[in-house]
C-alpha cells in the first residue's frame, strides 16, 4: 500500500479550502448579479459598535455568500444533484419535459378572495366598467409537460371561485381557460420554457378573448410583423439553477403603422416623467432576461398614447403579464395607462377621475394575484 497516496484525502481537502479561500480574497468582486437581478452585498463597515452588535459578522457572511468563487456553478450543481436524487422542484421550479421550467403551484392558502373583494369595492367606488382577466398558470395549461410527481395546480378551483364571487358584481370576468387549452392542444406555444410569463402568442390569445368579451374587433394577426430573438433566459431559468436548459426565443409583434410619430410612451416614477416613442425597448434584448423589452418592464405608472386609434381610454391594474399584451391593447385604445400596485402608492380612483378613463382593466398572472399583498391598498 502506498503510504503517500493514503494521504490524498487530506491533500484534496486542504487544497480545496485553501484555494477557494484564497480565490475569494483575491478575485475582483462583482457589484451586480444579473441572474438574481439584485445588487450583491458590499463589504460591511467594521467598527467597535458593528462588531459588538454582530452586524459586521452578519454582513461579512453575506458578503462571502454573495461573492463566493464560482457561485453560479455551485448553484447549478446543487440543482442537478437534487433533481437526480428525485427531489424535482426543490427551488420552487419543476424541471419538465421539452425543456420547460415551470413554477410550482400556488398554495391553497392564498389571497385570491381578499384581492377579489378589494377589486369589487374599488369597482363600486369608481362606477366605471371593469374587466378582470387572470392568466392561467403554466403548469395548469402545460400539464402534460410536468413531472409525474408534482403538486396540484389549483387554477380550476381558484378561477371557479373568482367567477362565482364576481357574479352579481359590475366586474366582467374573462375566463381564459377554454381558449388557452384549445390553443395549447393545437400546438401553440403560449408560455415560455424558461420564464413564468405567457409568450407574445399567449398575450395575443388573451387580447382577442378580451376584445370578444368587450365586443370590439381585435387587431388581426396579419397586421403584425413578427421578429424573433434567440437566447432568452427568463426567471424560472435563473431561479432553478438548471443551467443546461436551452434558451428560449422571444417574439416581438410589430405593427409598422405605429411609427415613432404616432406613439407616445410616458413612464412616471414618483415625480419624474420620461417620454419615449416606442413600446419596445430593444436595449433589453442584449440581456439574458429579455422580457423587459416590452414597455421597459416594471414601472409604477406608464401611459401609452397611440394616435392611430381614435378613441378609448383604459386604465390597467396589472402585473408583468400585461407587459407583452400592451402593444395589442394600444391598437384597440387610444390611451392605455398601466398602474402597478406594487410600486404605485397613491389613490387610483383619483387617477381614474382626473384622467377621464372610460374602462378599467385588471390583468394579473394567477400566481401573482394569489400572493399579491399590494392590491389591498387600492383606493
Amino acid at each position, binding site marked *: 500500500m502506498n503510504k503517500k497516496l493514503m494521504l490524498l484525502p487530506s491533500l484534496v481537502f486542504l487544497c480545496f*479550502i485553501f484555494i477557494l479561500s484564497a480565490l475569494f480574497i483575491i478575485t475582483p468582486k462583482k457589484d451586480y448579479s444579473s441572474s438574481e437581478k439584485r445588487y450583491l452585498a458590499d463589504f460591511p463597515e467594521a467598527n467597535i459598535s458593528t462588531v459588538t452588535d454582530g452586524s459586521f459578522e452578519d454582513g461579512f457572511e453575506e458578503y462571502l*455568500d454573495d461573492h463566493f468563487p464560482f457561485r453560479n456553478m455551485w448553484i447549478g450543481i*446543487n440543482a442537478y*444533484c437534487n433533481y437526480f436524487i*428525485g427531489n424535482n422542484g426543490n427551488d420552487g421550479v419543476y424541471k419538465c419535459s421539452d425543456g420547460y421550467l415551470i413554477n410550482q403551484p400556488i398554495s391553497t392558502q392564498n389571497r385570491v378572495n381578499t384581492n377579489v373583494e378589494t377589486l369589487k369595492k374599488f369597482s363600486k367606488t369608481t362606477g366605471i366598467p371593469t374587466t378582470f382577466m387572470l392568466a392561467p398558470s403554466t403548469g395548469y395549461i402545460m400539464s402534460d409537460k410536468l413531472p409525474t410527481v408534482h403538486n396540484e395546480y389549483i387554477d380550476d378551483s381558484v378561477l371557479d371561485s373568482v367567477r362565482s364571487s364576481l357574479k352579481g358584481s359590475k366586474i366582467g370576468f374573462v375566463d381564459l381557460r377554454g381558449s388557452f387549452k384549445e390553443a395549447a392542444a393545437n400546438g401553440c406555444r403560449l408560455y415560455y420554457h424558461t420564464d413564468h410569463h405567457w409568450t407574445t402568442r399567449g398575450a395575443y390569445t388573451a387580447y382577442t378573448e378580451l376584445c370578444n368579451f368587450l365586443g370590439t374587433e381585435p387587431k388581426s394577426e396579419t397586421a403584425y410583423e413578427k421578429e424573433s430573438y434567440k437566447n432568452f433566459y427568463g426567471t424560472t431559468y*435563473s431561479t432553478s439553477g438548471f443551467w443546461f436548459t436551452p434558451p428560449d426565443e422571444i417574439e416581438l409583434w410589430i405593427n409598422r403603422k405605429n411609427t415613432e410619430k404616432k406613439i407616445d410612451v410616458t413612464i412616471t416614477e414618483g415625480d419624474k416623467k420620461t417620454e419615449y416613442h416606442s413600446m419596445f425597448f430593444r436595449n433589453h434584448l442584449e440581456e439574458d432576461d429579455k422580457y423587459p423589452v416590452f414597455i421597459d418592464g416594471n414601472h409604477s405608472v406608464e401611459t401609452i398614447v397611440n394616435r392611430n386609434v381614435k378613441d378609448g381610454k383604459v386604465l390597467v391594474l396589472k402585473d408583468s403579464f400585461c407587459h407583452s399584451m400592451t402593444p395589442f391593447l394600444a391598437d384597440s385604445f387610444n390611451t392605455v395607462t398601466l398602474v402597478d400596485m406594487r410600486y404605485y402608492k397613491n389613490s387610483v380612483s383619483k387617477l381614474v377621475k382626473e384622467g377621464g378613463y372610460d374602462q378599467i382593466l385588471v390583468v394579473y398572472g394567477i400566481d401573482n394575484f394569489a400572493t399579491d399583498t399590494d392590491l389591498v391598498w387600492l383606493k
Partner: protein
Amino acid sequence: MVFSSLIFLFEYLAFTLLVYYIVPRKGRNIFLFFVNLLFYGWGEPVMVFLMLFSIVINYIGGYFVEKCKPDKKKAKIPLVLTVIADIGILAFFKYSAMIIDTINLLPFFNLPTFSLALPIGISFYTFQTMSYVIDVYRDDAPVSRSLIDFGTYVALFPQLIAGPIVRYKDVAFQLRHRRENILQFNRGVKLFMVGLGKKVLIANQMGAMWDAMQATAGHNGVLGNWIGIAGYTMQIYFDFSGYSDMACGLGNMFGFQFLKNFNYPYISKSVTEFWRRWHISLSTWFREYVYIPLGGNRCKIPRQIFNLLVVWFCTGLWHGASYNFILWGLYYGLILIIEKFVLHKFLEKLPRILRHIYTIVIFMLGWVIFYFEDMGKMGNFFISLFNFSDGIIGAEALVVASRYFLILLIAIAACTPLGATVYNKLREKKYIWIAETLFCIIVLVISVAAMVTQSYNPFLYFRF
C-alpha cells in the same frame, strides 16, 4: 459560527490550520485559545466575556480544591462553591425565563418577565468546566497549572457549541503533550467529511422534508405523519452525530483524540441500549457526576427509582428550557425504569425484529415530545399518528414523501453499521485511497453547492 458554513470552512478553518502549524509547538495552545474566542465570539462577541468569566472561576475553583485537598472536607468548600456558581450561571442564562413563568403560574405572584439571549454552547461548556473541578477533587485529573491550557480546553472550538462533552480527565494529558501527526490528521479529515456529509446532505434534507410536511399538517394522513416524524428522527440524528463527527475530526486535525459520541443508536434492541449509544458523552457525564454520586444502583429499589428519575429529569431539562424537554426526559426515565425492573427479561425472549420495532417506535414517539414545545400541537400530532379518519396519506404529503424518498432510504441505510462494515473490509485493499478521495471530493462539492445555494435568492420583482 457553525461548521457547515462557508465562513467556517473557507476562512476560519483555512486560516486556523495554516497558522496553527506555522506556530511553534509552545505557542499552539495560546493560538488555539485566541482563535477559539474568535470562533465563539463571531456574531455575539459579548458572550465571550461570560465564557471567560466561567473559565476564570473554575480555574480558581480548581486551584483551591487542589490546595485544600489534603483535607477532603475542606476541599469540598471550594468544590461546592464552584459547582453552585456554574449551575447558577447556567440557570440564570438558560432557565430564568422558564422559572419566572412557572412561579407566575402560582397565585399572588407576578414577577417581571424578561428574556435573555441564550449564550451558544453554554450547556456544553458549563458541563465541561464542572467536570474539571470534580475530577480534580476526586483525584481523577491533575489540576491545571496554566490558565491558557485550561481556557483552551473549555473553549476548544471543535466541541464548543454542540459537544461532545469532553471530560477534563480525558484530555488533560493531550492538552500539554499531544503530538500532531499526519496519519491522525488524515483520519480527522475523513471523519470531518463523514460528518459534513451527514449534516448537509442528509440532516438538512430530512429537515426540509419534515418542514414541508408540517406545512400541510392536519391532512397528511397517518402514513404521511409517520413519514414526517421519520424525517425528523433522521434529521436529529444526522445533525447531531454529524456535528460530533465533525468535532472529533477537527480535534484530530489539531492532534486531539475525543471519545465517540454516537454508536449507531437507531439499531438498538432496547431503550436501555439506545441510551448507551446515543449522545454517549452526555449520558456518561450524568452517570459519573449525578447518578453514581446519588448512590446509583447500589441501594434499595425505591431509591434507585428516585435516582433514575432525578437523572432523567435533569437530562431532559438540559436539552432546553421548556416543559416538553422535561417531559421527554421523564418519558425515557420511566421507560428505562420499566425496562430495568420489569421488561428486560421479557424483551430478551422476544424475536430480534420485534425488539427493534419496539425500540424504534419508542424513540420516534420520543422525538415527537422533543419537537413540539406547544403541548396542544404535540397532542394533536400524537392523535394524527393513529387517527385513520384522515386517510392514509394526503396528496401533498405523498408528493413530499416521494421527493425525499431516496434520501430517506439512504438515511435509513446510513443509520446502520453497513457502510462501516464494508469500509473495514476494504480498508486494507490497495486502492482504497481512490474510494476515500472520491468520497471526500463528492461530499465537499455537494456540500459546498448546498451551502452556496442557501444564499442564492433571485429577486424577481426587480426595479432600479
